[in-house]
């Protein structure tokens, strides 16, 4: 026996859900139900339909033990979208899925199943219709009667493919809160007055309204179009012709397309013109501008300024900026690291990132003041390899260190430190031209020349990169010892 079920079918989930629940509890097979629209019935017989969801064979229901029905949340989301679809087969499809889900709990994960694939396609077209409605509704203002003050009023006419008005209405309420509006469509309408969001499923008539701001919008639309890159197919995919009749800007499309070629030829034919006088005045003014801030030659400030434009090696092309040394120009101790890291590169200052924090902690433990030290790096630009959203530190090569040595030597000449601390092999190489194993020269004062002592320790990012925590703590302790020794040597 075939059950017939009549529904309004205008996007209301509950009417289908109630009926489907009743059928399923009665154990009725999907094949045995004929889902019909009430409007069709009226059309055929001109009378009220006799049967409805409430009248599903109550006697047979009682025979069954109605077990509690449950479905995955994903199915409810799917169903609430699909009931809005205008395809007459939607209720049967939903019931098939509902029925099958009782035995196949993972049915919806089976993206290749014919029913599931069809349902997902339909869900997608509801999503698209929803999205296009949020995009292509055009409000027109209905002016308030003269002398009346109050909220501004707007009216829009839209023609969706599916019964989505009630589904989309909250979007417009969240967005257009401070104005009254009505959206009328052949598949129902919605309105908002600042208090209540009303929706109706009754078909509306197309209103005849105009808004003069549309003219400004058309001006914008025509001007933002670039005639040199005509891609009509792309436009048609995203803004199909069926929407054009309700879009104020669409009437311009044919003439914009037709005129594009001519505009381009005209652009090409016209000779480049002579610039106006103001351009020449600007150029002269720019030529008179001093090129660099005035700083006294032979100072560390002058050197810093000079280094900011350094192009001695290729590293400058990829780094943000030169990270020059900083500290008192007459500091007794100069700390030389390997190269700036990610954070140093962005901030333009040495030893400020995670490595800088380790450094500051060690200084504090040794009772040293960062402000009293001159800190700099052997290489002044950050060398790295981009990896997705991060930059992976790369060791500078000998050539890069040699190029940058020029700056380090100038810094030493100007600051004249008593003690120079090399952190890591690159700094050691830059200062001494030697490639000793760090372990062999580390943690003891080495005579550099008559006036200067060298002290070697590890570089900070090495400490941060030791994966094993126990070893890292050991190395950190050794590093802190080194810093303490530096404190003693400096005093």
């Amino acid at each position: 026996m075939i059950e017939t079920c009549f529904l309004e079918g205008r996007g209301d989930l509950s009417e289908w859900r109630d009926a489907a629940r009743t059928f399923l509890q009665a154990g009725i097979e999907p094949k045995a139900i004929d889902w019909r629209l009430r409007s069709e019935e009226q059309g055929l017989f001109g009378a009220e339909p006799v049967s409805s969801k409430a009248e599903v064979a109550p006697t047979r229901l009682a025979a069954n033990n109605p077990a509690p029905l449950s479905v995955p949340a994903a199915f409810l989301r799917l169903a609430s979208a699909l009931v809005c679809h205008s395809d007459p087969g939607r209720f049967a499809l939903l019931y098939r899925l509902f029925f099958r889900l009782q035995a196949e709990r993972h049915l919806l994960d089976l993206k290749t199943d014919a029913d599931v694939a069809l349902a997902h396609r339909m869900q997608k077209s509801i999503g698209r219709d929803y999205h296009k409605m949020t995009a292509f509704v055009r409000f027109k203002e209905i002016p308030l009667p003269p002398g009346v003050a109050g909220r501004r009023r707007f009216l829009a006419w839209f023609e969706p493919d599916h019964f989505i008005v009630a589904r989309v209405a909250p979007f417009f309420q969240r967005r257009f809160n401070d104005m009254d509006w009505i959206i009328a469509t052949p598949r129902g309408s919605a309105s908002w007055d600042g208090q209540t969001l009303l929706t109706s499923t009754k078909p509306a008539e197309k209103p005849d309204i105009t808004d003069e701001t549309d003219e400004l919008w058309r001006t914008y639309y025509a001007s933002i179009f670039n005639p040199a890159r005509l891609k009509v197919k792309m436009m048609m995919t995203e803004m199909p012709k069926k929407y054009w009749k309700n879009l104020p800007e669409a009437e311009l499309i044919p003439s914009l397309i037709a005129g594009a070629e001519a505009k381009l030829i005209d652009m090409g034919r016209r000779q480049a013109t002579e610039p106006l006088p103001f351009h020449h005045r600007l150029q002269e003014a720019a030529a008179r501008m001093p090129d660099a801030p005035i700083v006294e030659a032979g100072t560390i400030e002058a050197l810093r300024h000079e280094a900011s434009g350094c192009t001695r090696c290729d590293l400058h092309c990829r780094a943000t900026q030169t990270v020059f040394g900083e500290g008192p120009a007459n500091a007794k101790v100069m700390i030389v690291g390997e190269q700036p890291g990610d954070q140093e590169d962005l901030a333009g200052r040495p030893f400020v990132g995670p490595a800088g924090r380790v450094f500051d902690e060690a200084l504090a433990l040794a009772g040293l003041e960062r402000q009293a030290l001159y800190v700099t790096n052997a290489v002044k630009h950050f060398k790295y390899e981009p990896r997705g959203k991060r930059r992976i530190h790369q060791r500078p090569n000998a050539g890069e260190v040699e190029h940058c040595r020029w700056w380090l030597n100038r810094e030493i000449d100007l600051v004249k430190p008593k003690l120079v601390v090399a952190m890591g092999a690159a700094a050691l190489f830059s200062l001494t031209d030697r490639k000793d194993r760090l372990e062999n020269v580390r943690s003891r004062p080495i005579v550099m020349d008559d006036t200067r002592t060298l002290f070697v320790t590890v570089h900070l990012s090495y400490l941060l990169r030791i994966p094993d925590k126990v070893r890292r703590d050991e190395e950190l302790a050794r590093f802190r010892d080194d810093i303490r020794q530096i404190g003693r040597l400096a005093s």
Partner: protein
Amino acid sequence: MRKSLKERLAILSDAAKYDASCASSGTTKRNSSASGGLGSTEGSGICHAYAPDGRCISLLKILMTNFCIYDCAYCINRSSSNVERARFSVEEVIWLTLEFYRRNYIEGLFLSSGIIRSSDHTMEEMVRIARELRSTHNFRGYIHLKSIPEASPQLIEEAGLYADRLSINIELPTDAGIEKFAPEKRPDNIRQSMGNLRLKIEEMSDPTLQTRRRKTFAPAGQSTQVIVGADAADDATILGTSARLYGSYGLKRVYYSAFSPIPDASKNLPLIKPPLMREHRLYQADWLYRFYGFEISEITASRPDGMLDLDLDPKLAWALGHRDRFPVDVNRADKETLLRVPGFGTKTVRSILSTRRFKRLRLEDVGCLGVSLKKVKAFIVAEDWTPHRLIDRADLRTMFAPKPEQLSLL
């Protein structure tokens, strides 16, 4: 005589159209139901119209003024050009934004400007527009501000409080290119501005000690644009620059804009048809880098001249050059390997992984997922399908390359 608002709108939107950025997505979700104001952003952006150039219109994209003291060769607004000049007042920009928004023409405002008087003066007016939209008019739509490289850090900081996105265009992929075509622009200044912005965004997103609340600062991040085809830079150089920008400054997007002829063009630039296909391939390559686990060097290795293949999409070009990595078994391969199959998108791969927990996939099943079987067939093994020697065929490329077209005689 003063030009009407309509005339100025025409001039100042014409002047803004060479900026490709149109995104209105990726910002915080917010709406006006509690505030009783106007506007919302709900995650995904909305394209309210499409122009016949195929570009979406999502924001009111205008310049505050097209007067500019810079003379960048590629730019329609450079000081030596004789385009008509105009400017909006702060109030006019606000009015246009709100009235356009109320009629649902747009998602918000994308405001840029020529440089007038000084960078700070220009930036100050732009910040004022954003501030008044937010505070006076309770506007919660999307705001994208172009930041002026030399503007003071305080102004940029204030801009980030009101704007969803901030951007600075590098326009040319190499420092040498910038020097040649935009002599007044300083590439190092642009990099420093991007660096400062990244630091600011990170600083603000750290929960504070007192309230544990994160401040909203340019929630949709920063972006930039590179012009393609104005200078001689090849695709490998351009993509290398993009990778550097993504990695260094956490950019949300790098836009590629095919150089297109401008009215009253500088004599130094080619008057060419914009290289639209090249632009498209660059976007595809950019996607492969960001979402498919490809390295830039892998993508650009398929040709010796550092250019992408215009006939084939970059993933297909890569696959044809690495046939030893195929065929891939859709029932066993891991996610990373599946993502490298030409014709499989991120969504398809998700569906495959979800489905194969319950059944073994046949070729027909793969077709059910909305995949072009013609394209993937040679590269995959399924339950009832193996490509046999298809993957080794010498003419595999011709099966995918577009058919040769006869040139029109005229």
